[in-house]
């Protein structure tokens, strides 16, 4: 037998069977989806804003408050021990989920926004000086633009922007040109929240690294669909939010390379982030506590740990395949609606479609869809520069998650047809 060639039952090795998930079984785990909205079954297509929570996450949060609630890292009593264990186990789970080699590299924050601000205000403030450059892209969420603008304004540095092509992809040739000798950091999103573009991160990170530029990846939209491997990616920082990955709001993560987290100054001062305090001198606590001042969102972290368990149980590959089918159907069906304009035809898309219908304002569209029980987002998606790039003030956006079905896509299409009739 030739090495590597084995006979076995099932699909050939080069085409593994697409992992499947059962949307009906998944939906049954989400209590909120059982309701009707305005007399219609809820069709929730605003997942890029926040996902719904499975029973496992809701139960984990409730159980914590009912059984274990106490402050962490302080008490010698049993409840504090249990709360601390739950909180730290969540850190280990979340770290493992994104491929971190050491849970001490996992800092709990309030969310992606706080994670980016933390890096801008610590790493950024020590690395960026007058005349230096910070590089972002034209498809960033405001939370990955404004913290850098604040930093640049403070330091007299310049904010540079990697342009977006008509298709909604990043212009990688321009990236090479913009990565210059004064570039101190590149901040780039894994997935565009407004267009669904999946950026070719390995390539982008490699190009930045070739010029010695550290990279922060905004994983808020990427992690629930594609996951992430922080080590394989080569990135220096990875920021994401719990509530977009089936976890609670108010909890997020900053993963950072150990060498950076060790070198960076603390951000916020307070309890838990210190080793010792005198009025003359304070010494910082070990990682990750140096960056976790004050009582953290313990229940949120535990809920996020449960969300990570839930995601791993269903399987990221199965979720990705399912969402790919949904978004493919959506792109096709929406493309057949007269006067419907889809924004972006990226090389790779994750779970998001952005569109306009004729000259109907997206807010009017969203109100009509809401009357059909369909929740979509209408607005600038906190990505005004990207909207300006496409010459619009706002779009309507449908975004998918594991519990959405092909019937949800059909409902969206029917809702859009109804909107056409109103505004004919």
């Amino acid at each position: 037998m030739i090495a590597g060639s084995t006979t076995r039952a099932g699909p050939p090795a080069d085409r593994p069977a697409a992992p499947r998930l059962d949307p009906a079984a998944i939906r049954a785990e989400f209590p909120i989806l059982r309701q009707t909205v305005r007399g219609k079954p809820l069709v929730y297509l605003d997942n890029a804003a926040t996902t719904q929570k499975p029973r496992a996450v809701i139960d984990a949060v409730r159980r914590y408050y009912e059984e274990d609630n106490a402050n962490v890292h302080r008490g010698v009593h049993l409840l504090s021990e249990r709360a601390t264990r739950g909180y730290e186990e969540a850190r280990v789970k979340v770290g493992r989920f994104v491929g971190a080699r050491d849970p001490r590299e996992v800092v709990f924050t309030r969310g992606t926004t706080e994670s980016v601000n933390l890096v801008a205000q610590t790493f950024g403030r020590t690395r960026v000086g007058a005349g230096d450059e910070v590089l972002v892209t034209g498809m960033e969420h405001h939370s990955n633009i404004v913290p850098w603008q604040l930093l640049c304004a403070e330091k007299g540095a310049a904010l540079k922007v990697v342009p977006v092509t008509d298709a909604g992809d990043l212009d990688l040739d321009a990236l090479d040109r913009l990565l210059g000798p004064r570039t101190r950091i590149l901040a780039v999103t894994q997935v565009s929240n407004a267009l669904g573009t999946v950026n070719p991160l390995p390539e982008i990170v490699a190009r930045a690294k070739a010029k010695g530029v550290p990279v922060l990846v905004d994983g808020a939209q990427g992690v629930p669909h594609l996951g992430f491997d922080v080590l394989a990616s080569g990135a220096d920082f990875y920021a994401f939010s719990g509530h977009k990955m089936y976890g609670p709001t108010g909890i997020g993560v900053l993963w950072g390379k150990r060498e950076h987290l060790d070198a960076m100054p603390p951000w916020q001062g307070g309890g838990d982030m210190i080793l010792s305090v005198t009025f003359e001198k304070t010494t910082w606590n070990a990682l990750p506590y140096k960056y976790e001042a004050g009582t953290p969102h313990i229940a949120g972290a535990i809920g996020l740990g449960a969300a990570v368990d839930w995601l791993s149980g269903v399987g990221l590959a199965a979720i990705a395949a399912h969402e790919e089918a949904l978004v493919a159907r959506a792109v096709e069906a929406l493309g057949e609606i007269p006067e419907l304009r889809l924004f972006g035809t990226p090389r790779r898309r994750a779970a998001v479609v952005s569109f306009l219908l004729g000259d109907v304002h997206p807010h009017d569209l969203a109100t009509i869809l809401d009357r059909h029980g369909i929740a979509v987002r209408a607005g600038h998606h906190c990505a005004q520069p990207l909207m300006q790039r496409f010459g619009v003030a706002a779009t309507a956006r449908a975004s998918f998650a594991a519990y959405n079905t092909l019937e949800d896509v059909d409902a969206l299409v029917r809702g859009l047809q109804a909107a056409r009739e109103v505004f004919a």
Partner: protein
Amino acid sequence: MSSELSDLYQEVVLDHGKHPRNFGPLEGATHHAEGLNPLCGDHFTVHAKVEDGVVREARFEGSGCAISKASASVMTGIVKGKTAAEIERIFERFHRLVTEGPAEGDEEDLGKLAVFGGVHDYPTRVKCASLAWHALRAALGGAREPVSTE
């Protein structure tokens, strides 16, 4: 269209949204103000020509949803010949209409503005209906900064 939707998107509203009246620049305007809704990007500039304390003419420019455009369109028609104090009273009545719903006597007192009675069922759309009003009130009050619904 379901009855609730037709309450919001009445024929008059759809018509004014599609074919806004008093739309465009205003020559000889004495007062201007911008109104913007950062939530959805709606953005209007309202111009008014005021003589002897009376709004002789009002026009608006910009972009927005059907509700905000129709509201600006109807408003610019209704305020002609009114003083700032009269406009303030109409606005108060209008604001009550879009936040609390229709009350007795609205049809008579509010005239064409009564078509916005359906808005109160959609709290997120109240800002759309009042955007142009906020801009006009700011203009008459001598505002220098754009007014925001947030």
